[in-house]
């Protein structure tokens, strides 16, 4: 279905778009789907309509993966992000095609893919640096050594921007995971294709199972689940009006979830890639110890 239509001489093998949980590509446990159509109404693909159980499973995977991912060295996390960029570069043609299929011009598509690759490189570089920028040694008045460091919040639920298939997703996942969080991302509902292909890139990039989990589905159905899950530490969301803002935060309050609102952001702009997005998904831990003998 998402086949390359120009290859008429043989029947193309259509790709089945599945979801990505715990390093595996299952179909939604619900068996439901929604049809993704091109402008002319032709079905491009049947997209998994993930259920809250899929989300639950994804959170379990993310929670399980989180301590190990956080414990891995910043150097290693940087290299893995770099590896994702390498893999994406190698498959950029596929992503360009998918973006075009979803209505972007070739030029737009190219820019989005190259920006996504560069963005991954950008955050890969931050892996072993953001801690140095945001940590502090605090000159307390008593005889104690006191320092504040950043620690990952834990499991981040990411509702990727709806108007972007790839760059919006990458721009929200990368700063979350580079700092040791794991995440469960809900893709754009309108343009879900690249997200699943991106999951395949992740799968080929030494990203440990469960660090990134990607679901496709309906926002109306899943946003509330993302916001309310008691074992999710923070939720990042990117579009919607006051009504969405209200419902997300109300649900988030049940476990005092951190709500990271990133609306109206031009994700293609390099101005919107910066370490403060990493810091958004970090807690600050302050440690005291006496100085004596």
């Amino acid at each position, binding site marked *: 279905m998402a086949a390359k239509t120009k290859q008429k001489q043989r029947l193309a093998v259509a790709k089945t778009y599945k979801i990505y949980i715990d390093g595996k590509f299952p179909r939604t446990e619900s068996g439901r789907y929604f049809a993704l159509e091109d402008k002319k109404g032709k079905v491009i693909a049947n997209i998994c309509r993930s259920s809250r159980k899929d989300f639950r499973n994804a959170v379990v995977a993310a929670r399980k993966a989180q301590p190990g991912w956080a414990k891995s060295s910043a150097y290693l996390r940087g290299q893995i992000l770099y590896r994702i960029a390498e893999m994406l570069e190698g498959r950029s043609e596929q992503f360009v095609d998918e973006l075009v299929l979803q209505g972007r011009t070739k030029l737009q598509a190219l820019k989005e893919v190259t920006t996504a690759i560069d963005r991954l490189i950008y955050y890969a570089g931050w892996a072993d640096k953001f801690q140095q920028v945001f940590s502090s040694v*605090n000159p307390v008045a008593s005889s104690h050594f006191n320092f504040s460091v950043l620690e990952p*919040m834990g499991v981040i639920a990411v509702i990727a921007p709806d108007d972007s298939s790839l760059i919006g997703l990458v721009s929200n996942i990368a700063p979350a995971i580079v700092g040791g969080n794991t995440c469960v991302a809900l893709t754009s509902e309108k343009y879900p294709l690249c997200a699943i292909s991106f999951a395949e890139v992740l799968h080929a990039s030494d990203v440990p199972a469960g660090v990134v989990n990607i679901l496709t589905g309906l926002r109306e159905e899943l946003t509330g689940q993302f916001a309310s899950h008691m074992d999710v530490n923070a939720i990042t969301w990117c579009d919607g009006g006051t009504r969405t803002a209200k419902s997300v935060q109300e649900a988030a*309050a049940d476990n*005092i979830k*951190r709500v990271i609102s990133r609306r109206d952001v031009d994700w293609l702009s390099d101005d919107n890639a910066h*370490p403060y997005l990493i810091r958004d998904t970090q807690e600050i831990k*302050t*440690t*005291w*110890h006496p100085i004596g003998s």
Partner: protein
Amino acid sequence: MAIPENKLAFDGGWDYDPAPESTDHVRIDKRYGLFINGEFTAPEKGRYFDTINPANEEKLARVAKADDADVDKAVKAARKAYAGPWGRMKARERGKYIYRIARIMQERAREFAAIESLDGGKPIRESRDVDVPLAAAHFFYYAGWADKLEYAFPGRHAKSLGVAGQVIPWNFPLLMAAWKLAPALAAGNTCVLKPAETTPLTALKLAEVIADADLPPGVVNIVTGAGDTGAAVVTHPGVDKVAFTGSTGVGRIIQKALAGTNKKYTLELGGKAANIIFADAAIDQAVEGIVNGIFFNQGHVCCAGSRLFVQESVADQVIAKLKDRMETLIVGDPLDKNTDIGAINSSMQLEKIESYLAIGQQEGGEMHQSSCPLPDKGYWCRPTIFTGVSQSNRVVQEEIFGPVLAIQTFRTFDEAVTKANNTPYGLSGGVWTDKGAKIFNMTQKVRAGVVWANTFNKFDPTSPFGGYKESGVGREGGLHGLDAYVKLGVK
């Protein structure tokens, strides 16, 4: 060391005579209005409530009850000051005003300390040595940030938010006011502060200081009242930022109430901190740490070390030493310089604590209290420990906010980590061991915003404070505390 078999005796013999802090220099008015637009004004509806001394249940003053209209006036005054003199002022000058507040507070430190103890019930030793000096130090610290914000946020441009609505609790009334006001003002915001219903006096005395420091009218407004006044502050549409310290229950309500608004918020909420003692710890200092952890300020401390985990090989020894140490704690008149544990802040809080004492015993916990005498009038609770309790008990899970410690033992490092983190809270934690590698390992694994290693309940203006998980959002104190009061833009 073996299990102590021989008991020490602390009663009878030489004892300390009363050593009351003098209050002849303290001025408390009979009635306080609301501090709005630089002056004390009567509340619109003319309603007042009593603030009492919890140590003798006597009335200290009548305090205005602000309703929606009063809060509206305060927010408008704050907005006007923000749009006007304060917003236009050079950062350096702004800083100098904040320095002034710090200095005047230092000058009037004894008066502040006495009133804090009168109104809130905390021992004068603590208000004198901890609350008041730390509050002044907070203003002094943040004053210096006013003209240095560009260095706090590399690569970004920091801009003030506007009007900050701030609601503070009764456990550290003046200190919490300082934690809220100092960074807000330094970053260029104006403030509407709502002190707790049972402890409004030091905030009102702070209003006097702010007036004496000649801050432009409306930069700081102080509205007194109960929960509905706080709600009016939080939900007022003219407020750009909300800062709240209090229970997780109310924090949750606030987070919901702010849903759909663009208000930035920080929440400092409850806690149930684990204090973990390994067998190789400096045991006597660890026992002091337990005492400071749970009996400081009557245990009315969100970061109190209310869950003690002791490695089993030293558990009997630690508990025996703790019991002996508890016998030397003096419970009584907050104004007495020798008092270690003052009055419980209110009758309501005492009821809550007592209900947990009953629950703990019903759950099968073994309760031990020190044998000290208690005054006849006022609200009091003896230092209390529970042994024989487990993770599933309510006294282990729920925040009691009183001098009540739940003690459990552990065998392995991993067991301690698992039990310590097995809570919805994540404000603070304590680790006691003489082994450096273990300290770093454990302090990394405890999921909490502040971890004290071989110490407990230490605070400093330069040191960020705040929780993980249900203990809150954001940090107060230090460079990181500025973040709550600015929005960051591209340079």
